[in-house]
């Protein structure tokens, strides 16, 4: 255990060996959750993913955590007494994906590993001192496939009112509590709709969409 160099000096964070050991302790359900979450984040990035795949996002989250375990100011600290490893990685991936989008939009600058710029926060949330971007712009075809996929979702869930509402609400940027309030849908129904949408996307992905 090491004292975090971050904002909370009382917080302890995992060492390199604790991080590596945690990989071996993950369950099959954890691995499935990590892969699905990474896949959706990469799919959402579209062209901004710059040909990266789910493994790149997951690998970056781990590399950043290992960097944080070195005890310096860089990387993400895993507060292993407080946060489960899988939750930490999920938070790190969320933050990295958001950072990749920002840097892609800022244009090509010198490419640097994500962990070099990362500053740790709670549950893997990260702030960056400097931004960066890569020069690969991704496929222009992504723009069209985004529209196509949205149209397909619209068509597929035309008879599924809950799923259709959840898609529309999410596209508008509503959170689950906002959906519950404004759409008069229970949280259970929202989550069930999400599950059906996830299944559709999963099957669509396997068909090469």
């Amino acid at each position: 255990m090491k004292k975090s160099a971050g904002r909370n000096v009382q917080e302890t964070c995992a060492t390199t060996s604790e991080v590596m050991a945690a990989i071996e302790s993950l369950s099959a359900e954890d691995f499935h959750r990590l892969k699905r979450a990474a896949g959706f984040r990469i799919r959402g990035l579209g062209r901004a993913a710059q040909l990266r795949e789910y493994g790149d996002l997951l690998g970056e989250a781990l590399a950043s955590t290992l960097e944080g375990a070195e005890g310096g100011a860089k990387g993400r600290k895993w507060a292993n007494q407080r946060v489960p490893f899988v939750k930490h990685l999920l938070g790190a991936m969320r933050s990295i994906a958001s950072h990749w989008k920002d840097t892609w939009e800022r244009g090509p600058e010198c490419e640097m590993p994500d962990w070099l710029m990362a500053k740790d926060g709670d549950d893997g949330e990260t702030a960056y001192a400097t931004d960066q971007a890569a020069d690969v712009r991704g496929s222009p075809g992504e723009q069209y496939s985004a529209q196509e996929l949205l149209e397909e979702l619209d068509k597929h869930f035309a008879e599924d009112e809950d799923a259709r509402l959840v898609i529309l609400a999410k596209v508008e940027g509503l959170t689950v509590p906002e959906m519950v309030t404004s759409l008069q849908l229970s949280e259970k129904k929202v989550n069930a709709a999400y599950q059906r949408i996830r299944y559709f996307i999963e099957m669509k992905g396997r068909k090469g969409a």
Partner: protein
Amino acid sequence: MPKLDKHEEELMRLMSGLADSVEEAPASEILEDAERAGVSLLDEAEEVRNVLRSAGRSHLQRKLRDSRAAYETALAEIQREADLPGSAEERRQLLEGVLRDRPQYQEIVMTAQHREFRALSDDDVTSFLRQLKILGLLPTSPANK
């Protein structure tokens, strides 16, 4: 500057929502997802574990390379120190000798603050000798001279 278009932004928000829903879903729902999609959890666990192991290995290898580079730099620094004479008096004599033989170097190392050679501290002398060495202006292996 590149920008995601309207549809891409919309899809990104939806996908973020789906990713969030995966993060928040109870274990039973995640397992149900996998079963429904016909995923072999054992094969997938092996695949994802390997992604993490590989990322960990790459990170540690890079750290080792960095450590080796730092070690070599430190070694070169020690070597540079070792090339200087062992005692303060010998170092002072060496600098004095170099500046006597080549008075033109005096302008390089002596500033207005250090006009009096005898007033130089050993740290100043060592620093000047290092500067001369870096510039290649010091005789090779002066310690042996």
